[in-house]
């Protein structure tokens, strides 16, 4: 029983870290219509930034400043937010399909840097000894996992409130207007490029935080954590949960992670041990089938976008 509770806590902790990444993508795609297919890259930047800031000094890679975890997380948001702003500045004038190709290329580039800039990132060996929150109680799994879940749940809640305040406001209304008709929005004095850049940078910062959280919960990162399958997973979460709705983003994160984990358990139970490494690819298949069904049966997601944007208009 304790084992099960402990696993449930661990599962939810990971699921909520994905939900946070989904909140970031929702700001970019759901609210603003920015087709970012490089999610994994921005998550990776956050993970590496926080790891480099907080790990103890080592010969394996540069930095290793041993800063507190909170400083690593703030640094992750800052670095991935800045990187998003720079990349956005260069690419956001592109139409949606070209933006998709470009962000995909950015993510591939980031992966290759992580893989090859060994002095900075540890190369293919990744970065180990990333400090874990509440590590002093790591020998008591239930308490350890419970505290980590409480921490990520609190962060998810704060980010949800902050996103709702921001998106369901005149600012969010401008994003929506630019998404629906850019020329009309410009004729009314709203600068499409400025608002797109703000949404892209802010969304990138949130994705980076999600990546940093995952890095610290696991304690180890490597370049291959940040491949396009991660981008696919996060997109599926947002579409199934409900693009344009923050609750939908969180719900989608938890549900799709549950599906991902359950299909892993099912493969473990059904497939003989020597075939399991190959069968792991079926997890992506399961998520893909789920996505196709969701698009057919509920294309707006489980919780769709609202018609009224501003929360100040709720009576």
């Amino acid at each position, binding site marked *: 029983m304790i084992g099960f509770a402990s696993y449930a806590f661990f599962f939810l902790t990971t699921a909520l870290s994905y939900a946070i990444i989904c909140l970031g993508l929702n700001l970019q795609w759901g609210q603003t219509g920015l087709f970012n297919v490089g999610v994994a890259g921005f998550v990776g930047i956050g993970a590496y930034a926080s790891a480099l800031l907080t790990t103890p000094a080592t010969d394996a890679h540069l930095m290793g400043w041993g800063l507190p975890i909170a400083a690593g997380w703030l640094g992750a948001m800052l670095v991935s937010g800045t990187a998003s702003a720079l990349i956005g500045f260069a690419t956001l004038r592109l139409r949606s399909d070209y933006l998709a190709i470009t962000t995909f290329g950015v993510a591939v580039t980031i992966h290759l840097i992580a893989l090859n800039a060994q002095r900075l990132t540890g190369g293919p060996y990744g970065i180990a000894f990333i400090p874990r929150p509440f590590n002093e109680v790591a020998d008591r799994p239930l308490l350890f996992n419970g505290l980590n879940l409480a921490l990520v749940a609190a962060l998810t809640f704060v980010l949800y409130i*902050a996103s709702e*305040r*921001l998106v369901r*406001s*005149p*600012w969010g*209304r*401008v994003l*929506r*207007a630019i998404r*629906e*008709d850019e*020329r*009309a*929005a*410009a*004729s*009314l*004095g*709203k*600068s*499409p490029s400025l608002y797109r850049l*703000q949404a892209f940078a*802010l969304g990138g910062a949130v994705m980076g935080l999600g990546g940093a959280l995952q890095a610290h919960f696991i304690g180890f990162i490597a370049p291959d954590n940040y491949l396009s399958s991660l981008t696919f997973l996060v997109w599926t979460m947002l579409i199934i949960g409900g693009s344009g709705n923050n609750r939908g983003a969180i719900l989608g994160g938890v549900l799709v992670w549950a599906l991902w984990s359950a299909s892993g358990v099912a493969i473990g139970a059904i497939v003989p041990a020597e075939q399991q490494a190959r069968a792991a690819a079926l997890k992506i298949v399961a998520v893909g089938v789920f996505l196709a069904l969701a698009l057919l049966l509920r294309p707006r997601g489980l919780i769709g*976008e609202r*018609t*009224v*944007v*501003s929360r*100040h*208009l709720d009576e």
Partner: protein
Amino acid sequence: MPILVAENLVKRFGGFAAVDGVSLSVRPGEIAGLIGPNGAGKTTMFDLLAGSLTANSGRILIKGREVQAAPAYHRIATGLGRTFQIPRPFPEMTLVENVMLGRQRQIGERILPNWLAPRRVAREERETRDKAMALLDFMALSRLAREPARTLSGGQRKLLELARVLIAEPSIILLDEPAAGVNPSLLETIIARILDINRRGVTFLVIEHNMDMVVRLCGRVMVMASGKRLTEGAPAEVSRNPAVIEAYLGGSAA
């Protein structure tokens, strides 16, 4: 001083000059018309004045300030608003939020006040909503305020666009074919509203094909044909001008 001046505007698309050295000026308080056959370059002229297109050469002055190099989203701050030939409401947003969006310099359109001063944003939103509702009422659309804009008819969309630009309190509005695709009863409402707004001191420059409407609205019309300015004058006198008749007949025969 004229409120809006264009001097020798040129806009080429490849080798084709859609607007070829056109000058015009609009005086404060008037309703000026811009007419001409299809393909005369009227809408291109509007896009230049509104900043949606950038001229190859020439100057544009709003209240004496040169604006030809500034992007479209700067125009409304100088006092120039526009509507579109085919109305462009934000289709999935409600009517009231379509109009609210038009208000200028909202503190809630910046990121930080939404986190740090939510009460100020809430207060501002109530004011904006009340203004938007009053404008929808003025346009006889208030009973649809909470419907998404995609449900409106063509004429209602024209009225919504007018309300949306009015909340920005412009001094001059460019209207691109306010009568096109509008049923006759709604047309009367549109004419009445334009005249009401003009009496409150707002200047208009109107592109229109419906000559009856031009005569009723405009004190003065400028005529364009094949990218050039042909003539200007009172609507009745211009419509008898042989060069104008020739341009319209030539345009429809081509």
